């Protein structure tokens, strides 16, 4: 049953215009962040250039929002009703959605990494410097971008399944990412390094010392473990609430 649901979910993702807009937004965020830093910041040293290629992961949080929109959107658009009529086993429904969005996240992460490298190499060359970041580091950053973006999308699905109210869920995530997460990092860096933004920086493995309010950053492996734990936690919560919850009558 799971393979069928994965095919259906993939078809849903492809057939929904919002998905393509969000993918475009993720690439735009990567391109603009990298481009602005290229134009405004230093590019000569290896550390400068590691910071630039580190922007490969910034699209991850956009995919987190896509996961939230997709899972909570099932309730907003009432598509949860035919989905459950076809598959009364709701655990499998949530799992299929998470798998498809994680796969889409991985693809977006890989493309973002390639885009970021391309912009960095071209920009550094145009500014008259040599690109000196070793290939092993580029591979590590690309891997980090793939894992972070994939986990972000799956985490978003879990969050959306728990929240159910699409507008409230998206607003909550935006407020947390733009205000609460940086504030926690600024006030309590030891705690803030476990927040999603600091974890994103850890995944990009820039080695940079100036990350704004995110002064403490976990090692890459630790960030991967923590983010995987978050994703698993919200997937379990999303699945559990989906199974327990009755589907109310549409009040629209």
């Amino acid at each position: 049953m799971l393979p069928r649901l994965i095919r259906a979910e993939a078809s849903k993702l492809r057939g929904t215009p919002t998905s393509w807009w969000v993918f475009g937004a993720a690439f735009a965020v990567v391109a603009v962040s990298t481009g602005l830093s290229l134009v405004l910041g230093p590019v000569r040293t290896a550390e400068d250039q590691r910071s630039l290629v580190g922007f490969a992961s910034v699209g991850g949080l956009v995919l987190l929002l896509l996961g939230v929109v997709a899972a909570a959107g099932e309730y907003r658009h009432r598509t949860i009703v035919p989905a459950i009529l076809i598959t009364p086993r709701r655990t499998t429904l949530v799992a299929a959605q998470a798998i498809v969005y994680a796969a889409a996240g991985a693809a977006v992460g890989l493309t973002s990494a390639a885009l970021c490298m391309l912009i960095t190499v071209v920009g550094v060359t145009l500014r008259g410097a040599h690109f000196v970041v070793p290939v092993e580091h580029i591979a590590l950053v690309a891997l980090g971008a793939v894992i972070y973006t994939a986990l972000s999308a799956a985490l978003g699905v879990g969050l959306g399944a728990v929240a159910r109210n699409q507008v409230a869920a998206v607003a909550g995530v935006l407020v947390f990412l733009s205000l609460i997460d940086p504030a926690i990092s600024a006030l309590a860096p030891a705690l803030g390094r476990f927040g999603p933004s600091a974890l994103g920086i850890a995944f990009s493995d820039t080695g940079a010392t100036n990350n704004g309010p995110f002064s403490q950053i976990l090692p890459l492996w630790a960030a991967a473990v923590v983010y995987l734990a978050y994703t698993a936690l919200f997937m379990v919560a999303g699945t559990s609430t989906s199974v327990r919850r009755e589907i109310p009558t549409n009040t629209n």
Partner: protein
Amino acid sequence: MIACRSLTKTFGRHRAVDQLSFEACPGKVTGFLGRNGAGKTTTLRILLGLARPTYGSALIDGHAYADLRDPIGTVGAVLEASTFHPGRTAHAHLTVLALAAGIPLVRVVEVLRIVELTADADMRVGHYSLGMRQRLSLAAALLGKPRALILDEPANGLDPQGIRWLRTFLRARASEGSAVLLSSHMLSEVAELVDNVVIIDHGRLLHSGSVREMTAGGVRLEDAYFELTGSAPEAR
């Protein structure tokens, strides 16, 4: 066979469905009648596994919906007029459902033809009229060639031609042996269509039997209904 046995559903202190028992048999169209808020939709939602009974059972072919081996091949359901993403086309919506159910995609084209939506299959559902959305809901219900149909107010939003088409369609399904359970508060719409009626009020069964019995002696279904419910004829 669709059957409820002592079905009860409470929301806090409110008893939406109260010890309700009835059957809808194969080969017959059963009208599930009652005023708005009588408990019809709650009963159908329990039958379809979207809500849990507080007490009693709601079974299709002897099984709770969640335990059906082939749910979409056993029963097709229309519950709400809009269960679609507005940005998807009708074809894309049905394709997703067919893929999820493991149904060959050629069936999508078939059901679109059955509900006469072929010409509008590539239009985004957000641009559909209420009547077109009802037809699309029906197309989704027919995807698995189900042996039974459960329809909640399926005539809502249909124009007179659409209502006539629906009547013909449901009669044909029943004559092929399907059990059709059709809820409505519009008596005039179902009077010419149903074989049997189940009438409820405040979640309780008022009457279950054939239309022929109810209308014996030339009594109109509407009049028999209002006599049973003791209510003013508001639901015409």
